[in-house]
């Protein structure tokens, strides 16, 4: 047994597998969450991310694999002995109890003396800015307030692990964005290991120390938001996080990759794949007149504008390349960019910095 006195525990998931009939909800997933880390499980609905979270909480028994908190194996431990705080999508507050009673519930179970209980609940409610709401009923609260009560209830008993299942999905956009920052601050304050499930890539980028992307029950990629955005491991990650245009690359004998006759880089020596794809993020592009002095740090392609979409802060420029592939650029509307002069059917040169070029294995689909 470990004698952890720190505020958080690491989580180690090893080869976790769960099937429903013949479908894999989780297929040998291994993830290590560091103590104190904010890790987000990101994936489309049905990808298995919630199944993984429920397995960590103990509500979902996997077919095989191991889950450890710190050094302790909790694979078959019932949920009430795991000591993890949990926030559900719909909050799951107890409607027959007041705000105070809801938050005091885990302390009551642990037989904490009344005055200490009172103090800890008060502190927790202060942390989530609900001090004045202690005696309210649950049905008298707004969505955001309910969210905070669920949060206070989950951390009031000092769990070393906090699990959240899409806790912000029921809130409207503005409130959701506020709560994202608040949750991030709360995490910094508590220092508790947090596993957060969402299908919203922007939310994941905003909040996480690291993001684990789950697809069809398998771990597609794990890394910091920057790593994931700038170096997606495959087509799925590149299309799920951010917007991208995909171009197929051809490989010549020396191992250089080309698109439309332009060399975009070498085959990374790590892999032996036959096909490679160029990924271009729309905001990394620059647009030029067809006759322009070329910068040697950049690669240029020529294309023709098919559609312009004005969106206030940006303009989306949709183009068709000479070989028929589509490319989307997102241009800031500040004066220097001169986007107002762009016209549909205009021919132009598209430039991208060599550093911004992303090459992934596989065919462009």
């Amino acid at each position, binding site marked *: 047994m470990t004698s952890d006195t720190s505020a958080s525990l690491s989580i180690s998931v090893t080869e976790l597998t769960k099937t429903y009939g013949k479908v894999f909800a989780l297929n040998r997933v291994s993830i290590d969450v560091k103590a104190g880390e904010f890790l987000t499980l990101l994936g489309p609905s049905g990808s298995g991310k919630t199944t993984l979270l429920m397995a960590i909480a103990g*509500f979902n028994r996997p077919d095989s694999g191991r889950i450890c908190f710190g050094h302790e194996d909790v694979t078959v431990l*019932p949920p009430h002995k795991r000591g993890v*705080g*949990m926030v559900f999508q719909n909050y*799951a507050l*107890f409607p027959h109890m007041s705000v105070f009673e809801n938050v005091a519930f885990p302390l009551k179970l642990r037989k904490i003396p009344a005055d200490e209980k009172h103090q800890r609940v008060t502190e927790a409610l202060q942390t989530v800015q609900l001090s004045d709401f202690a005696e309210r009923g649950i049905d008298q609260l707004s969505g955001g307030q309910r969210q905070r009560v*669920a949060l206070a209830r989950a951390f009031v*008993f000092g769990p070393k692990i906090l699990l959240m299942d899409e806790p912000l999905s029921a809130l409207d956009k503005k409130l959701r964005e506020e709560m994202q920052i608040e949750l991030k601050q709360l995490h910094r304050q508590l220092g508790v290991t947090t596993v957060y499930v969402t299908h919203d890539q922007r939310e994941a980028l905003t909040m996480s120390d690291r993001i684990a992307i789950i697809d069809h029950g398998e771990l597609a990629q794990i890394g910091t938001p920057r790593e994931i955005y700038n170096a997606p491991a495959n087509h799925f990650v590149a299309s799920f996080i951010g917007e991208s245009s995909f171009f197929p690359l051809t490989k010549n004998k020396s191992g250089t990759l080309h698109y439309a006759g332009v060399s975009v880089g070498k085959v990374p020596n790590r892999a032996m794949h036959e096909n490679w794809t160029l990924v271009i993020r729309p905001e990394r592009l620059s647009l030029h007149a067809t006759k322009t002095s070329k910068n040697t740090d950049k690669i240029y392609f020529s294309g023709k504008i098919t559609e312009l979409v004005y969106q206030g802060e940006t303009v989306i420029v949709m183009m068709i390349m000479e070989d028929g592939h589509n490319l989307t650029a997102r241009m800031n509307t500040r004066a220097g960019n001169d986007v107002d002069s762009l016209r549909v059917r205009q021919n132009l040169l598209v430039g991208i910095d060599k550093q911004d070029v992303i090459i992934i294995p596989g065919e462009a689909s």
Partner: protein
Amino acid sequence: MQWWKSSASETQITHGQRLWLYCLAFIIMCLLVIPTVIVIPMSFSDSQYLEFPPQNWSLRWYDEYLDTPRWMNATATSFKVATLTMLVATPFGTMAAYGLFVSGGRLGKIVFFLLMTPMIVPVILIAIGTFYVFGKMGIVNSILGLVLAHTVLSVPIVMIIITSALRTYDLNQERVAQSLGSTRFRAFFEITLPQLKFSVLTAALLAFLTSFDEVIISIFLSGGGNSTLTKQMFSALRDYIDPTIAAISTLMILLSTGLMLGLQLFGDKTTEE
């Protein structure tokens, strides 16, 4: 705008054009209610023959009911059996409904079907079958046999009510309670059950009424000193029209409507909270 010209449906039919429907519905509702309550005024008649409206009012038939030991015994038996049935069927049905709701699976489906058979199997078969088997077990004409049979009739009703309550209940509450350190058992009693109390009470009252009003099994399984009220009424009905039964019927109507209205009031109170 007069109401009969105002719109009554999505297709802009007016209330005036709907008048025929309202009249028809009114007649059908009268046909439903009047035969149900007609015995109430008749029971206060002085006459040997049931008449409506009564020529002379009296409590004669209520006295008759209260003074006859046969009726009193039967009433006591019915209350005893119905109360015991309620006390057994409610926990049995609630446990089964909960167990099946959280487990699912194919085995769960089979069990659900098995527990619902009392609703499908004609009661006459249950009556003669239990009469035969309980006879061999020596529990015919006993409270035990009646309670057992009535419990089985009530369990599906309890299960249907509890299951439909669980459908609208968020089981995540129980999960969250477990994550906060509560055992599953405690989570059920502290979190789930308090929120199902209205449904449990409804189920209990229905179990009580199911037993109290049950006729066929009682005819076969009760007898002697343990005859139920319904059995006594049925045998009296087949012989001649005894006005005492009008008095008893009135009391039974009052009992079931009283329970129903009480439940309604309790329900309004709990939802207001």
